């Protein structure tokens, strides 16, 4: 385990905790952006360059901005006056902790994980593109369709109904 991993892990976990626990929604969203950036660093650390850049482009550049917009449109930019936790929050945290213990236990106790260190695999952009255009063409098309549908759907859902359908 390199020092880089620990730095990145602390960055990710710290900002994720902040994103989940801060009182001000905009601060949450900004922490989320930091988490995304940290994940992108983790991907770079794992030699997945393309995915890392795509992560920054999509998550930091689009999803985080989208969330910020949603916060402002729902007037959540000011700090909440009332309690931020829902009534059953103890249960929720308990369940989350349970899930972590179970999943983490599974990872730690697993004997299936490969122990041999392998050479760094190469994933050039060209290879990814070739794969996308040949073997994974159908998922690619489906994703394209999905994004189009989501685009239209999001516009329709968020459109104001009051201004008369016609």
């Amino acid at each position, binding site marked *: 385990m390199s020092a880089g991993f620990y730095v990145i892990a602390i960055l990710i976990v710290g900002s994720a905790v902040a994103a989940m626990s801060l009182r001000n929604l905009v601060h949450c969203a900004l922490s989320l952006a930091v988490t995304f950036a940290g994940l992108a660093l983790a991907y770079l650390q794992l030699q997945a360059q393309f995915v890392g850049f795509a992560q920054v482009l999509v998550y930091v550049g689009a999803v985080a901005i989208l969330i910020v917009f949603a916060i402002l449109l729902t007037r959540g930019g000011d700090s909440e006056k009332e309690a931020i936790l*829902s009534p*059953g929050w103890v*249960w*929720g945290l308990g*369940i*989350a902790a*349970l*899930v972590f213990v*179970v*999943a983490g*236990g*599974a990872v730690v*106790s697993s004997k299936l994980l490969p122990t041999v260190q392998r050479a760094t695999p190469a994933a050039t952009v060209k290879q990814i593109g070739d794969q996308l255009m*040949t*073997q994974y*063409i*159908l998922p690619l098309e489906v994703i394209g369709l999905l994004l189009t549908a989501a685009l239209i759907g999001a516009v329709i859902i968020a459109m104001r109904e009051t201004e008369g359908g016609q």
Partner: protein
Amino acid sequence: MDWIVPFLWLIPALPLIAAGAVAVVPKNRKRFAATAAIASMVGSLVLALIAFGHSLARIKGGQSAPEVFNFRWFDLGESALRLGWVLDPLTAVMLVMVCLVGLLIFIYSVGYMAHDDNFTRFFCFLALFASAMLGVIISNNLLLLFICWELVGLTSYLLIGFWFHKPEAAAAAKKAFITTRIGDLAFLLGMVWLNSETGTLLFYDGGRGCLEQGALSALMARATSLGIAASTGIGLLIFAGAVGKSGQLPLHVWLPDAMEGPTPVSALIHAATMVAAGVFLVARVYPLMEASSATLTVITWVGVLTAFFAASIAVAQNDIKRILAYSTVSQLGFMMMGLGVGGVAVGMFHLITHAFFKALLFMGAGSVIHGCHEEQDIRKMGGLKRLMPLTFATYMAGMLALSGFPLLFSGFWSKDEILHAAHGWDGSHGPFYLGLVAAFLTAFYMTRQVCQVFLGEHRARAGGALAAQSPCQPHESPAVMTVPLVVLSFFAVLLGFVGTPAWPWFQQFLKGGVAATDFQHLFSAETLRLIGLSSVIALGGIGTGWWFYGRRPLKVADEVDPVESLRPDIYGVLRNKYYIDEIYEVTFVSLNAWWARACNWLEFWVWSGVARAAGHVVLGLGWVNRAIDEYIVNLGFDRGCEGVTRGGGWFSRLQNGQVQTYLRVIGVALAVLVLLLIWGGRS
């Protein structure tokens, strides 16, 4: 001219481009829309004729194998999806027919739709339809055919519901779409099955296609758990798709309702081309159908029953287009029967001749409707012979062709061919006799229609008083509508001569052979006997019709129909179309509605009720306890009651409508799942 085969895609592409161009221009560019659509059809027609000539030349040269052009669409993991187009006589003939009829109907529509606000939309849909239909014809892959097939269905939906502000039109469009979907589902299943058995959906692929010998014999050898060969099962499923699209029993209910669309649409889609697509599909996969006699038997019986039922229903209808619609259903039944008993050539010959004369009849009906100011009830017409002479003459040609008037008209020869084949069928004689009855009824109801529409006095005014000076006087249609009628009537009369027993050019062309003139065959005793029989049937039908309706035309619109006065019970059944719509209403539709209600009830009372009831029961217990507590035992059970109430609250909290509660359950389930997995992995 070998270049035509790889470039066959141009034929559907031209109307598609026109549709795209028309779709983006503003609504008021009517001239552009019409010009683009018609020009694209002319281009397609020219290409289709080239393809036809090429096919002809090849057959003359003695080559009869279909020419194909296959290409790889995309790779999917290990396997590649390949599409392609095919040029064989069947394709060539259909291409020319669809392009020619389509072109004439496009021209006709310019006149018919001239005053419609949505003129450009209409032409956009029409061109899209033509493109999809031509795609069905050329495709060499069942999947490509299916895609175009569904596109055809979509455009049919759009065009039936073209006047969607009319509730009937919207309902009819929906009905057509949903009914055909039932057949298409079976079609899709058959396709999937075929693909899993043979591994390819290409029809012809140099010996590896699914219609070629290798695949077929494997299919025939393969038995299923139901005890039928795979080829039979697949054939029947694909035929179910054709049943839906071609309006055969029991899925014919949408076709008469589809007449809510504009008349050119009825002529193009619901008479000449799209409904024939089902017949074409059966003809295209005929090797597969031929592989099992069971399939052919089913096709024959479905066809002949449809022919008979629809013809009898047509006798008692009063809407000019509805009569023609039932007549179409009936004739499609004839085609199916022809395919079943006699093979591709027999059915296809009737398809081609029918396409021309039925398009002619529909366009004539459209001309009548147009002339009578959107009146469709034949009882309120009459006397149009004088007012619309050209329409009358062409309509007569179509009517005589459909009735099978001996020797001169195309319908006679094609129908005779079917009856001839049915006579020689070794399965049963039932289809032959039923077919004869249907042919008789056909002649009868067409005569009835013509007599009521064109003969006698005009009955639009109440009491039959014809206001000659009224501005609503029926008038002849403009030339842009009548010229296509004349051209079509020319074909309706003459097309029969390419397939007479004496010179069966058409049949031989489809089989890939060259026809020779053979008068011996024509004058052989059996042929003569059958020709005589058909003539008698047709003339008998026309004569009976004349006896009832022609001798003494109706005087007023609401007079009782002569046949009705004869046998009101039968007539009532027929007028109500054997109550099939009603039967469907009380069976399938209400079953569906009932099931939906049952689900709703279950959802509301049972599932949600269980949770609520549990809560309420425990709550109620708590209440009872409290009552006992307060009045009888006083404070003794206070704590116990509280506990029970809390239990009830806990139950009802399970369904509190809060997403997070549900999410919490999912989280617990996730943990349990992982634990199970670990446990499972350990043991």
